[in-house]
């Protein structure tokens, strides 16, 4: 006989342990069974989230108010966990916080599989996950921030009030935007300088006896570095175990679809080789060519001739937009012949 009520409560408590913070370092992979449908949905939704992170990051200054508002909206529409405590009342008909965190956890690991294979994919994934992490960490209350640090073994001590007092002037002059009052109010963390290299390198922090004195609001930089290092290592390891995963026929098509769906900004010309036909050139020259090339094309058509420099410029441009060698030969020959140059000589001109 089932006692659904009680059972739910029991499951609830072990769930609480697993996802007791809305943010995590993704240290442990999920250990449960899920359906293929859920697998796919989670992955696609996280990908949407990361794409949004990228787009918003390009359109707005990172961590500005607009940036945060836009990102928050996306989080709620996609049902990813943000700030709420576990154990909040379940929104009527909505998804519980627990469910959101579970999705966050699982979807991250699925995307690791899809994005570990090449340097470009890894770089893109790490960049978006870092921006995402930075945003979410920034939204935490100071207490939650400290909780997070302790839970993840970043046991950085806070600086005692007496020490802060004795170092007050030095602390004020070493970080931008600090005053006597803020130094007193804020927590400062003592972090070994090896863990705060970005701040050390730019001399934005006070150093004493090998420790960097980091104000609370800067601790995110340290945490991010840690996050990046861990994720980078994890992706490298994942790449090595990938062949096993890819041999599963159910997953293979989904994973390759995911990684091809988006690889970030792509400026490589290769991707844009359409096959243009010779007939298209005249039309395209009016519509899509840059002015310099349009001019060259016009001159060529009018005079049936171009000087060496012009041929070189224009020829390379045509190659760049996708003209094949045969087409190019044909094109130049047809034009120059009109200019009463021997077809044979045309070959020498190119």
């Amino acid at each position: 006989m089932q006692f659904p009520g009680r059972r739910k409560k029991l499951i609830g408590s072990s769930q609480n342990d697993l996802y007791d913070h809305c943010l995590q370092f993704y240290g442990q992979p999920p250990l449960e069974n899920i359906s293929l449908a859920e697998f796919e949905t989670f992955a696609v939704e996280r990908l949407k989230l990361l794409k949004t992170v990228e787009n918003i990051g390009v359109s707005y200054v990172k961590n500005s108010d607009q940036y945060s508002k836009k990102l928050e909206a996306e989080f709620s529409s996609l049902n990813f966990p943000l700030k709420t405590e576990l154990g909040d009342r379940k929104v009527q008909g909505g998804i519980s916080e627990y469910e959101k965190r579970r999705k966050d956890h699982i979807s991250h690991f699925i995307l690791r599989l899809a994005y570990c294979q090449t340097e470009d994919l890894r770089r893109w994934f790490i960049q978006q996950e870092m921006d995402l992490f930075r945003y979410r960490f920034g939204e935490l209350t100071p207490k939650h921030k400290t909780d997070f640090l302790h839970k993840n073994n970043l046991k950085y001590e806070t600086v005692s009030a007496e020490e802060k007092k004795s170092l007050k002037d030095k602390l004020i002059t070493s970080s931008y935007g600090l005053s006597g009052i803020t130094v007193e109010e804020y927590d400062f963390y003592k972090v070994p300088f090896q863990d705060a290299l970005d701040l050390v390198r730019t001399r934005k922090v006070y150093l004493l006896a090998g420790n960097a004195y980091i104000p609370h609001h800067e601790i995110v930089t340290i945490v991010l570095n840690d996050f990046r290092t861990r994720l980078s290592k994890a992706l490298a390891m994942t790449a090595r175990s990938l062949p096993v995963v890819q041999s599963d026929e159910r997953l293979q098509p989904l994973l390759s679809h995911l990684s091809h769906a988006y690889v970030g900004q792509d400026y490589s010309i290769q991707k844009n080789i359409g096959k243009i036909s010779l007939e298209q050139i005249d039309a395209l020259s009016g519509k899509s060519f840059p002015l310099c090339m349009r001019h060259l094309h016009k001159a060529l058509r009018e005079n049936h001739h171009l000087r060496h420099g012009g041929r070189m410029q224009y020829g390379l441009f045509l190659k760049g937009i996708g003209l094949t060698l045969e087409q190019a030969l044909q094109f130049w020959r047809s034009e120059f012949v009109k200019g009463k140059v021997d077809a044979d000589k045309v070959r020498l001109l190119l």
Partner: protein
Amino acid sequence: MPTSDYDPACLPDLLPLYYRRLFPFSHYYRWLSYGGVSKNYFQNREFSFTLKDDIYVRYQSFTTQNELEKEMQKMVPYKIDIGAVYSHRPSQHNAVKSGTFQALEKELVFDIDMTDYDDVRCCCSAADICSKCWTLMTIAIRILDRALREDFGFHHLLWVYSGRRGVHCWVCDDAARKLSVAARSAVAEYLSLVKGGEEAVRKVVLSDPIHPFINHSLSVVERYFRQYAIVDQDILGSKESVDKVLALLPDDIKKDLTIYYQEEKNPMKRWERLCTLVEHKKSSVKKGGQYFDKEIMLQYCYPRLDVNVSKGVNHLLKSPFSIHPKTGRISVPIDLKELNTFDPFEVPTISLICEELERPRADEAEDDDLKDKENEQEAGERRRIRDYKRTSLAKYVKVFVRFLEAMARSRKGEMLKKSDLQKDF
């Protein structure tokens, strides 16, 4: 102190003598073994030798002190460089699967070279140095030593004269030897204030807030600046050097000074006027301080590091106690307690110490015979120790030994701490 005239042509004769009887092998080995705490630390260390006719060989490694001695005596290197401690014996690096032979640890090192200051010193240029510009090295050592100890918490620093025109610093702490490339580069950048190549005119820019490190460094520079720059280098003397200084100032101050300098020829008064004008400007401008006078002092005096030397874990640097083939001088450790009186021209040359070796000593005891009964290596060892003690090298070896003993004490302290933690009484 009379120095025998050094002639590079004599090196082939002097070097073998140096390596047989004077090079402090036992202390050297003791240094690079670091107490034997890590297995194979000495065995996996890379050395590189430059032999006669500029033949350069890398990936030299040795299993014992004895092997090091024998090889050096056999190969007679003109130059010796020390590299990193690798994952395997460097001499066998070809036998190791490609990709697995890696540089693991090395001291954090700094190289200050006088040629990097050529744009701000007028007494010498290129490879030359003199007592006037040597002050730059003194300033560099004081600033960097303080920062590495107080800011970064390092304790075991060995400062060495390079033999010609600069100094090196070997930071030998455990933590320093384990630093990553990123960490080394971060330390070097933290310590860098003079930026910009030949093209840059203004190489130091300060803005509020002034970091405590910069303030500490400024107080060192200020101690030396007037004597060094205004008097010795005479930077406000000739028109040429005055122009260089004025180029670092904003137009209004420049104009004022140009007029003032037409009348006032005394360099110290000229400098004072410059400072007064900068001070005035600072208080009249509301936005953050302008620190033109401090920037000038730093541009003329602040240490110029080559970040690339410090960055690489596998970078090879000239070894202490090696000879500089062009000058014959020995790369000796510098005693920071005597820094103010250190004179690079008093550093012994190989010809001097070889000559000192040959001088018979009246008080030389005859108890050699007694000691012959002991095993040959020890006897040779003792003879060698007696040998260098008779030469000008002695006091520098003493500095080195003090450095080694400080490290040994610190290691002992660490071990005690560890065993205490493990409740191992």
